[in-house]
């Protein structure tokens, strides 16, 4: 009576462990495969005809890359951009998540719902929506000039300011949500206890709430840093060529000069730099931060 399908079903229910095989195989073939191929490509010679000379081994791409003052400058700019965006997003995201955790009922639903709605926008839309707001004749400048804050319209579009605003906006949900998740389970009586013992509002937040929120802030901060350092859409739409990140440069090698090995080498260098900086930050928090702060990470 047991058909082949029945046997497969029974085995899947009996030994559910086998169910992890497809997804792990998928990750190995698609994810690991693609990244290993990228690494291999970065060690391949460029070719005049075609994108690369298959089967060759060389380190010249990395040598040329490290000697290229312009590209190393772009890498430093990208890392600086990532640091600034991460810092601003962490501060704003913490305030937002704390407000959501302290609020109740409708207020909490509105605050969380707004972030979820933002999560539904593509990065293109998120960035593009700031164009009419930041333009020289745009909404922000109209308000500033109207209120007399500034005499002449500020240059917001095509500058660092525009790119930072667009990136902070894009990254905010990725900081708010994990921070909220850690604060939602927070023991609020400890805050009340700190206030009873004479701590001011800011003191109690700093001494009691921030340590509890650290795992979420760290997870969100790492994501924000990893993504904004190699931002692609925001520098193109809200910036000018002097806001180009390593991602824009790598894409140029792929699309314009068809130099895949250089693009691969630049990508590898960018990932190594991001992992190094983020790793140092995580190590510092593990060493000096509250206990268990790095447990939520991989």
């Amino acid at each position, binding site marked *: 009576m047991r058909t082949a399908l029945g046997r497969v079903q029974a085995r899947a229910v009996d030994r559910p462990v086998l169910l992890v095989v497809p997804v792990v195989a998928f990750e190995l073939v698609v*994810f690991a495969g693609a990244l290993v191929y990228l690494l291999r490509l970065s060690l391949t010679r460029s070719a005049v005809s075609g994108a690369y000379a298959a089967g060759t081994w060389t380190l010249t791409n990395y040598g040329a890359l490290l000697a290229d003052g312009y590209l190393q400058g772009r890498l430093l700019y990208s890392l600086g951009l990532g640091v600034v965006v991460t810092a601003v997003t962490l501060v*704003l995201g913490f305030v937002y998540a704390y407000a959501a955790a302290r609020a109740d009922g409708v207020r909490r639903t509105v605050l969380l719902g707004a972030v979820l709605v*933002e999560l539904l926008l593509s990065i293109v839309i998120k960035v593009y929506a700031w164009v009419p707001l930041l333009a020289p*004749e745009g909404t922000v400048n109209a308000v500033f000039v109207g209120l007399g804050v500034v005499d002449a319209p500020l240059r917001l579009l095509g500058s660092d300011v525009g790119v930072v605003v667009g990136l902070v906006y894009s990254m905010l949900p990725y900081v708010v949500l994990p921070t909220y998740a850690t604060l939602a389970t927070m023991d609020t009586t400890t805050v009340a206890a700190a206030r009873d013992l004479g701590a001011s509002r800011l003191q109690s937040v700093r001494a009691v709430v921030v340590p509890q929120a650290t795992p979420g802030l760290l997870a969100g901060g790492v994501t924000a840093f990893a993504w904004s350092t190699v931002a692609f859409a925001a520098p193109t739409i809200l910036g000018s060529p002097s806001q180009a990140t390593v991602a824009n440069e*790598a894409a140029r090698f792929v699309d314009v000069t068809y130099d895949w090995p250089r693009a691969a080498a630049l990508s590898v260098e960018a990932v190594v730099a991001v992992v190094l900086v983020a790793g140092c930050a995580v190590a510092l928090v593990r060493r000096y931060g509250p206990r268990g702060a790095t447990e939520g990470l991989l």
Partner: protein
Amino acid sequence: MNRRLGTLAFRGVVAALLGFVLLPVAVVVATSLNAAPDVVFPPDRLSLRWYRAFLFEEPEWRHAFVNSVVVATGTAVLATLLGTAGAYGVRGLPDGRLRRAVTTVIVLPLPTPVVVLALALSVYFARIGVGSGHVAVVLGHTLVTVPFVYVVVRATLARVDWQIREAALDLGATRWQAFREAVAPQIRAGVLAAGFVAAVLSLHEFLIALFVAGVDARTLPVLEWTALRNFVDPTVSVVSTLLILLAAVLSVPVVAALGVERLAREL
């Protein structure tokens, strides 16, 4: 007095942040209704002319819309199958360290910079013969959506009452019957929600689609990008608004199944 002032200041800051989060959404919707061909906020006069133009005059956009729907559907199915099976199977692993290792492998694409992933996938797919059609985009989108499915389904499984399954087995049900009758009803809503999350994320994914998709498989965000590089056009606002609406409709069952609060905690 000082305390009340502090509360007021805090509320003001939070209200400003809420405005910061919602203002761009308002801009996109408002500019799509602008009568003039330029993108200004707030618009002077309202009209539906750009919606008409999008629906009836632009075959390119319609084609991209179909591509987006095809890719989002494929991604939702594949990611839900892989992620749900993984989340179910990982509980059977005996060792906690092994379980963490599997989770790490599945979640690792998330912190990987998407641009690097997109570049790598585009050259890798070209090399191994996957090409640049719908299948390639679905594979790429599955990679970045499986972690979400996996996390949501694991959270759902953590709440399952396994004693009902034991009871079914004691009463003579086969293991498959016990799963179907006792476990499946408890996880159905969570799995469905995970699938919708995957579809919505795919619908809005931009970088992988941009680098991996050939001209025939271009999705809506890719075409928006191409349009934006030439000139700012209200059609982009129209498409964005329609995408937001589509995502909102797809989110209704998710929110109904999980509630805003739980969804926020589990994503």
